[in-house]
């Protein structure tokens, strides 16, 4: 319990706060240590200096902007020229300064300019540039592409193409990959559910499976072949008479056991495999197989770098 009677001080040297608890428990009122007090005064002085150097107090419809400045270089988009500028201290100017001046950014910029200037053959031949592409490309790929194509470019069977194999829907040259990145792609296959009867769909699916030796050829598959190669189905328009696909149409190669759209490998029985293919032929592909366009999101150099990176992942010619 506290009471406020001033009991006599036992030591006499140091004052107490004047309270006494439990009749004799008292509290010394020691002065603050000198070093602590000076530190405190120091921070007060620092804060006043800080107000003058950095943006601080709001005043009316503006604020005290401070004497501090940042020098940065930024590209003027109208002229394409790099311009140096000095501006009052703020975090956005600081970012531009850092992007322009940091030692590794300078190196990075020089290498990016080199990559941008070189053609694909030169890049492939230059081990230093390829090393750069692999390290920077890994980051770019991870940030932008890995969500669909997987961290290693392995894709998701039946949904997003594997970039490390030999099967390319839209062409595998560096230029084609570049084109795919810049403008994006929209996979399309018409729905045959209304055109073909269910038996005919069965036959076509059977034939498609014989193309990659998933099924032995049979009477059914021969009927399917007639539909595939004839005017009824007309599948050969896009997939080619040899069924090896036509990259300008984004049509899949059906002979190589690599399944970009229908998840055939996951099906155990022949019946199930047929059912998956039949479903795709019936429904077609529309609006689901979309590769976004990157031209507005990534810089031309980043896109070129990614084209080289994807090309070297393994499967491209």
């Amino acid at each position, binding site marked *: 319990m506290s009471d406020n009677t001033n009991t006599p001080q036992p030591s006499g040297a140091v004052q107490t706060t004047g309270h006494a608890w439990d009749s004799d428990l008292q509290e010394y009122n020691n002065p603050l240590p000198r070093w602590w007090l000076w530190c405190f005064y120091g921070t007060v002085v620092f804060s006043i200096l800080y107000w003058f150097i950095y*943006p601080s*107090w*709001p005043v*009316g*419809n*503006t*604020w005290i902007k401070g004497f501090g400045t940042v020098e*940065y270089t*930024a*590209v*003027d*988009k*109208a002229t394409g020229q790099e*311009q140096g*500028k000095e*501006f009052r201290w*703020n*975090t*956005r*100017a*600081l*970012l*531009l300064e*850092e*992007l322009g001046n*940091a030692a590794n*950014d300078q190196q990075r910029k020089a290498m990016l300019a080199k990559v941008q200037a070189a053609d694909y053959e030169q890049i492939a031949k230059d081990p230093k540039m390829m090393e750069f592409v692999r390290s920077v490309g890994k*980051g770019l790929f991870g*940030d*932008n592409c*890995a*969500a*669909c194509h*997987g*961290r290693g470019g392995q894709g*998701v069977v039946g*949904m*997003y193409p594997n970039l490390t194999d030999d099967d390319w829907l839209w062409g595998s040259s560096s230029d084609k990959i570049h084109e795919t990145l810049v403008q994006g792609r929209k996979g399309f296959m018409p729905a045959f559910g209304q055109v073909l009867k269910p038996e005919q769909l069965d036959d076509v699916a059977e034939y498609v499976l014989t193309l990659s030796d998933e099924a032995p050829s049979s009477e059914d598959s021969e009927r399917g072949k007639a539909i595939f190669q004839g005017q009824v189905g007309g599948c050969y328009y896009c997939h080619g008479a040899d069924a090896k696909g036509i990259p300008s149409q984004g049509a899949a190669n059906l002979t190589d056991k690599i399944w970009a759209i229908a998840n055939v490998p996951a099906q155990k029985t022949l019946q199930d495999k047929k059912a998956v293919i039949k479903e795709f032929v019936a429904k077609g592909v529309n*609006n*689901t*197989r*979309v*590769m*976004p*366009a990157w031209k*507005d*999101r990534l810089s031309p150099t980043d896109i070129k770098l990614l084209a080289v990176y994807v090309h070297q992942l393994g499967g491209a010619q």
Partner: protein
Amino acid sequence: MRHEQIETNSALMLVLILLVISVGGLVEIVPLFYINETIEKVDGVRPYTPLEIRGRDIYVREGCYLCHSQQIRPFRDEWLRYGHYSLAAESQYDHPFQWGSKRTGPDLARLGGKYSNHWHVQHLVAPRSVVPQSIMPNYPWLLDNDLDYTDVDGRMRALRVTGVPYSVTQAEYDANVQKYGQAIADQLDITKAQDSLLKQAREKDFDGFPGRITEMEALVAYLQVLGTMVDFTQYNEGYFVEFR
């Protein structure tokens, strides 16, 4: 005033504590409402369409902001990973803003257009089917639930009170046509809210089910517009520096 008086009077102490700790907040926040350069002058930022508003509400309902921020800070690493830092102008119609404070997942401020609609649907239903190392929960009900859009005009009216320029009168509509063009102004018209929501959903079919309008439809529509309104190729890098 003597210490003893304050320390022995809890109500007085409470009031004084409130006064003292509110100074910091008031000095930092209040001036932003009347400082001219708080909101950068940029073209392209518009209020959300009815479908996007519903998507945004689902985003809030599912607590996406607890793991995903929507604010790219002006740091080098964020610039390289996510793109241009966020502007105040870009969240001027967000009430409440979705800046977030915790990144368990990646920042979403510039998510729009980065992935296909199909990917978003697949990823929201079963994140690990496309990103094996993901720890995001599954949200399969978004595809099962039909979107309730009957109250969307009420939601727009509420936002209108906070200053978002959704139109009710002809004059307001005309002003929006002037500012955003007819196609957008139609979407911002509260009197036609449900029709324009249906129109956008049918035209774009974000969820991949043409016959249905699911909650997924709205959420994907919202995710696909994030960070896409300002065309940064139009501005010099130094332009936004001058607003700070």
